[in-house]
């Protein structure tokens, strides 16, 4: 009898859940939707809890990282974790109903189960910002990924300098997390909000977020040498914002942005989100502005 080649069964090999393990590729945690809060017409805040207590405890992430959320047969998509890293496997995702997955999700009730994998990607290096002023600038849904670094700074508020949150939305009805603004201010956050289209009752600023930023830069206490900025929002917005900050003297490597691409695997294999050799899902989504400047077609 001729010899048969040995078969190496990778599936049979013990698969842990560490990054290097082959078994981790398609592994997803099961999580339960514990609460759903409608924030605006299109966005809802989902509180999720990993079902396995051990997994919930071990799950850890850094501000700016994202997870892939999966609904069997419906789809899988990346979402920034919007809660504090201290809460481990009790996650908050703020999700806008734009398509298949997000729409089906919006019809699900508490108690339903979703798949979560990750966390993936790079993060905003809040640990390097200790002792410095921090500017968080968000446009539209961009406020969602900003919440994680915001919480991270607030947990250690005394270790940071001045903390600015600038947030722009289309209209007052589109503002997210309005219920939290007061509590942020209590932690010495300079919150500035602007809308494009004010309604009758609106008493805050109107216009582009760049106007808020110009005002801030004009102030005497703006010190580019000891500041960091995190900018999230649509590409047009952070292009202008970053240009303004650069002009004001903030070094490019001290500005961080989060890029968005359509991701199919989230694991640097499907080649859908990469720009040349740079994978948004592995090397990003968080980049410093210098890197983005060097990426063709990044924004």
């Amino acid at each position, binding site marked *: 009898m001729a010899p048969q080649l040995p078969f190496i069964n990778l599936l049979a090999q013990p698969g842990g859940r560490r990054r290097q393990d082959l078994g981790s590729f398609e592994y997803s945690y099961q999580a339960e939707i514990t609460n759903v809060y409608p924030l605006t017409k299109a966005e809802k805040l989902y509180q999720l809890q990993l079902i396995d207590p051990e997994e919930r405890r071990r799950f850890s992430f850094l501000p700016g990282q994202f997870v892939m959320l999966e609904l069997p*047969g419906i789809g899988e998509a990346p979402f920034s974790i919007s809660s504090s890293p201290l809460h481990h496997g009790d996650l908050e995702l703020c999700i806008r109903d734009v398509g298949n997955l997000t729409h089906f999700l919006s019809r*699900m009730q508490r108690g*339903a189960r979703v798949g979560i994998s990750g966390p993936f990607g790079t993060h905003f290096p809040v640990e390097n910002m200790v002792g410095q002023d921090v500017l968080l600038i968000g446009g539209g849904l961009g406020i969602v990924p900003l919440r994680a670094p915001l919480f991270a700074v607030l947990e250690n508020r005394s270790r940071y300098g001045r903390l600015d949150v600038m947030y722009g939305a289309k209209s007052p009805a589109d503002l997210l997390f309005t219920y939290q603004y007061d509590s942020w201010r209590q932690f010495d956050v300079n919150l500035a909000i602007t809308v494009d289209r004010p309604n009758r009752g609106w008493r805050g600023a109107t216009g582009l977020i760049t106007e808020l930023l110009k005002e801030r830069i004009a102030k005497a206490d703006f010190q580019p040498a000891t500041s960091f900025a995190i900018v999230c929002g649509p590409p047009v917005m952070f292009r202008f914002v970053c240009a303004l900050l650069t002009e004001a003297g903030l070094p490019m490597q001290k500005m961080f942005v989060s890029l968005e691409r359509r991701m199919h695997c989230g694991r640097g294999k499907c080649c859908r989100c990469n720009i040349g050799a740079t994978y948004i899902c592995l090397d990003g989504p968080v980049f410093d502005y210098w890197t983005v400047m060097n990426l063709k077609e990044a924004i």
Partner: protein
Amino acid sequence: MAAPLSYLGVGLDRPRVGVFEFTSCEGCQLQLVNNEATLLDFLNLIELVNFREAMSERSDDYDIALVEGSISRADEVARLKEIRTNARLLVALGSCACFGGVNQLKNRFGDLDWVKKKVYGDFPIASQEVRPLADFVAVDLMIYGCPPKKEEIEKVVTNLVVGKKVAMPKYPVCMECKANENICLFTLGEPCLGPITRAGCDAWCPNHRRGCWGCRGPAEAANVRELEAIMARHGFSREAMLDRLECFGGFSSQVAALRGQPRRPRKARSSKRS
């Protein structure tokens, strides 16, 4: 009554479906019953309330209208408008409904009386220029193909039931043909419209060594100019290319451009559901 439907704990409505046909060969609706292996599961997913070809019962209360065929007579226009009023979602099923299909080939003569005379002599017959559904009513969704793939119809219906958006491929047939590792028909010496035709059929014809005739209409970046060059390079006549391009009506604007005719303005009122 069948058990209520649900998916991942979300309750789903079983859509009431009506199937209708206009000027056509009725092949598209036949495809609905041509999926023997899955027919019963398919029928469980929907409530069929109107399907003249297969059932006696009729009702005007339906959510989804699957409409086959092109429009070529005044009474058809009226009936189509009625269907539009009744249906929440109107689906154009097949090339005739989407583009006019083979039926629109008679339009190319311009003179309709000549066409009628050619077939019926002096016998009076009512018939007008063949048009696709979207020329008269808003069409929510198009299922392309002559014939459409039953798998595609099933996928579309499943997606509608669970509330998933239906996205048809935007790339051309070549993509699927190459994925199936076929030998290119141009290599074999046959013309093919695969490079510019919308995929989704899984390269049905090239899989059988038959050139594509473009029944699914243009792909989203259809490079007709280059196709012309390719046809010429391989020694195929312009006539053979135009025969294929004009066969199903999907490329009507491209054909008009190639023939140097002004593109006739369309009354198109296609709507996208939000």
